[in-house]
């Protein structure tokens, strides 16, 4: 019995060893492959709105800098991308009517507000670098946001409590008429 037990134990150990060895070899091959070829998607086009691109780094920037939120959606990229598409449509309307230019101070305040979302300057700079933005880009984004705000304040001033609904309805209209190519929706 002892002999049998020992034999059985040995057999199990050999099986274990074989299994671990195979895992090791596979892992080594995989590791080598990972070091040499595993590629990370740095950036890609997610949508084209009226000829303007929205890229993966736009979504990253909007999320990491706290400019847009995913609202706890199951697909945060989808959620933020939809907001950026709407923003681009609105911005095209804003360009047509050219509302008052925000002052440099107002843009500075917005930049400062974004900075406060980060614990220190390094993390803020790292977030910008990850997103492919520099401070000029961020200023431009925030300037556009202020222009959108000014436009909406001017156009929907009388909407009162219904303001958000009216804006949503207007944006939906822009979406219907807009020239949108949603590559993320196509799942490519």
């Amino acid at each position, binding site marked *: 019995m002892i002999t049998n037990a020992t034999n059985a134990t040995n057999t199990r*150990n050999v099986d274990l*060893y074989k299994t671990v060895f195979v895992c090791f070899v596979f892992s080594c091959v995989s590791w080598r492959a990972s070091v040499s070829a595993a590629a990370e998607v740095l950036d890609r086009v997610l949508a084209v709105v009226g000829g303007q691109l929205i890229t993966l780094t736009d979504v990253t920037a909007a999320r990491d800098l706290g400019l847009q939120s995913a609202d706890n959606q199951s697909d945060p990229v989808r959620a933020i991308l939809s907001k950026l598409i709407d923003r681009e449509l609105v911005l095209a309307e804003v360009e047509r009517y050219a509302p008052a230019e925000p002052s440099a101070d107002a843009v500075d305040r917005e930049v400062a507000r974004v900075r406060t979302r980060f614990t220190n300057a390094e993390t803020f700079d790292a977030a910008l670098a990850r997103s492919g933005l520099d401070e000029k880009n961020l200023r431009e984004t925030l300037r556009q946001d202020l222009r959108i705000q000014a436009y909406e304040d001017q156009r929907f001033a009388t909407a009162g409590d219904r303001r958000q609904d009216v804006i949503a309805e207007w944006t939906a209209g822009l979406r219907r008429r807009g020239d949108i190519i949603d590559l993320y929706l196509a799942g490519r």
Partner: protein
Amino acid sequence: MIARAAGTGWPGRAGRRTAALLLFVSVLARPVSAAVADFIGKPVGAVRFFLEGRETTDPAFVSIVETTAGAPLSMVQVRESIAHLFSLGRFDDVRVDASLENARVTLRYELSPIHPVTDIRFAGRTGAAGIDIGALRRVVADRYGATPPIGRTSDMVRLLSDALAADGYLHPSVSSAVRLDHAPERATLTFTLEPGARTTIGTIDITGAPSLPRSELLRRINLVQGAPFRRERLASGLERYIQDRRKRGYYEAKITPSIQLADQDRVANVTLAVDPGPHVRVVFTGDPLPGDRRNELVPVEREGSVDEDLLEDSTNRIEDYLRYLGYREAKAPHTREQRDAELVITFAVRRGPQYRVAKLEIAGNTNIASSEFEMALKLREGQPFSDGRVADDAALVEDLYHRRGYASAKVQPTTGLRPTGNTAAQVPVMVRFDVFEGERIVVDSITFTGNTSFDDAALRGKMALQVGAPYVPGQLRQDRDQVQAVYNDRGYESATVDARPEFNPQNTRASIVFTIREGPRVFVDHVLIVGNVRTDAGTIERELQIKPGDPFSLSSISESQRRLMALGLFRRARIGELRHGNETARDLLVTVEEAAATTIGYGVGGEGRLLPVPQEEAGGAAAARFQVLPRAFLEYGRRNLFGKPRSVNVFSSVSVPLNLNQTQTSGRLTEYRLLGTYREPRLFDTATDGLLNATIEQQIRSSFTFRREGITAQAARRLTRGLSMSVAYQIQRNELLAVNVAEPDVLLINRLFSPEPVRLSGFSASIIRDTRDDAVNPGSGQYLTANGQVDAVAIGSQVGFAKSFLRAQTFHTLPRSNGAILAGNAILGMAGEFNTEKPIPEPERFFAGGDTTNRGFALDTLGVRHEPSETQRDTIDKNGFPIGGDATVVLMGELRVPVRGGLSVVGFLDSGNVFQRVSQVDLTELRGAVGFGVRYRSPFGPLRVDLGFKTHVAEFLCPTSDDPAKRCPESRPALHISFGQAF
């Protein structure tokens, strides 16, 4: 045993330890996916491009990416590279992957080329009743074009679903599948249709009081029980019915459908609520209204309504209309009256007396004389008076004062009845404008705030308002726009400029303050050129007025677009902007769509002209005969040669006179022309265009027919917008084929018309000033040309001569004439041979007469003729055939009056003659003609018919066997049929 067994078994403890270690290592060795942050800042080892998985080294890609090997990786550059690649318009998607190799980043750009859908197919139940595949295909093509992008597939699916629903398939299922093909990239899009059950019309109920029997009503709206339910067709049938009822006077007819779907939407039960409304009759009583204005003043038929607001507006319109005509007390109230089934609307029009301006006085205007604005006033003594005209005229005078600096000027109109002369029908009114000029406001100062990029002097230089000059509010607005334009043109696209005047207490001086918010200045970062297949990028770049590093200027972009189109190489050229997300930099995307490189044109046409032909019964004397020449042409062009805006064209035309027996000079010859042209713009990189022409032609003239082969090399340059000049060298060979001249002139003929071919070689220079608003049908401007030519034996010519030709044309649209144009044309031609033994060959001599010179004469038949013949002076032989001359003078004038549509009439007065020598030019020998013509802008081109009459008919000998001294008069009229204007 256990211990031994455990201690000595090969895979014992040590083995287990080894296994555990391996497992640990294997866990550690899992594929690691690096985060984006891990790549940033690391040196780029390689940048590779993959087009659908296949690596490419296309320099078009390499040159526009920002990420370069050796430089640290920056996501800013990655983003920018993606934008550039995508902007090429060749890709559906661009993705950038990164991997680490030996601590260096390898970037992999994955490019998914656009696969235009070149084939759309339909599968599934395409044979279901009522499904028209052709119509569905058209629906897609109408919205998305013949080659729709794959990215629009979901939209196309929605569109097709809607189309099927409109055909009664209310719940269709449409799915799509794409098959991609490569080299060339294209896609086949297949839509699979599952239309489901078709909804049919079930019950049809009609409620209300239809004025038609049920069957007739349903027939008119094309509604049939059991037929497919087509919502849009039902709506259009109802609309048709309503329109028909309105035409019959039932302006308030209504028919409202309601649809109840049943049996799982397989059946649509329709209920039509019909309200026929009353028959409406509009009646005008009292004073008359012009019949052609009634529908406009009372638009119940057009609006399809007798709504009370509409009727109220109609009353107001009638009263305003009459008041404008001077019926100041006009009233046109309306009433509605129901008479049985009819609604009668009556407008009782009472015009009242007509007020007329008896006297118009203007007072108080000391600084601007009445004569400066009187002509522009609407009010005139003796003309109808209306309050509207008074207000308009007061505003006009006020505006004039404001423009002269009297910003506070007011004009107070007063009106009063003239005490005498009143009749029941007419009331004379005295109108007086009291002008309160106020103080003239002068600009005291102009200051700018917020301008950091341009100094005050630079901005002030763009303004019309200046310190010390009168202050004009309207001019201030224009100056504000000018300052704004300065900023916009220099890259400050979001600059805002506010201009505000501040006045001193006396209101005599204005200080103008411009408040400027410049905003960020935008520069051009990259210029990307896409769409050029045959055209060299350098050719495009040379036309761009904006380059990388330049301020982003809309006017430069616009000018660049214009220049690109002027190359003639492109069907479309557009310059768009690409935003970086950087407020100070933009990329420019120049998208061109090349025109077809090869053009082929062909056509047929005809010309009718008078040509002198010899009459045997009149001893060979010339008589003008109308000749019809059908023509055909074929043209081949090839542009964009070798990637430059070079072009080559070959034009050929042939015409055969129909009534050949009349043209004994030409026998059975045909006219033909073969012209090859090579154009090289910007010759040797200069602003000069080069042109090389080769011509082979045979032409029938009135007294001879000739064949010519020639080559011309020309260099032309545009000096200013309206001024250009050219120089040319020409070598040609002329050969006479048939001559028609009188016997006594044989010596002259032998001298003039050499039987041997003649080679001519010479230089010419031209200068052209063209300020016409339209080259084909000008309404204003001038066209002046001066041409000089020298052919000399020293440069290979067999005949040496000098020749000059001057032409001056002027066009004026007459004011208040509904577009009538007065046009004038003057021609002066002078030539002289260097050796009198070798006269100028006839094709180079001057001829006149015909549809483009003097329209009272047949082609070329204008000339000097004496009796008895003076061979040293005459340019018409004794039989009436022209022999041409060394000098010509032609003067033409015409009035072009548009009639309707493309039709216009012309009256003209032409004069001119041809002289044998320049020294013999005698203005008293000019021959005149008057006439008229018709122009019609037909689909085939502008047709022209002119009928001219000689102002003086001469008589010449036309001896016959019976009467050797017989004299025949010239034919007075001359008819010409052709295309285009005479000049």
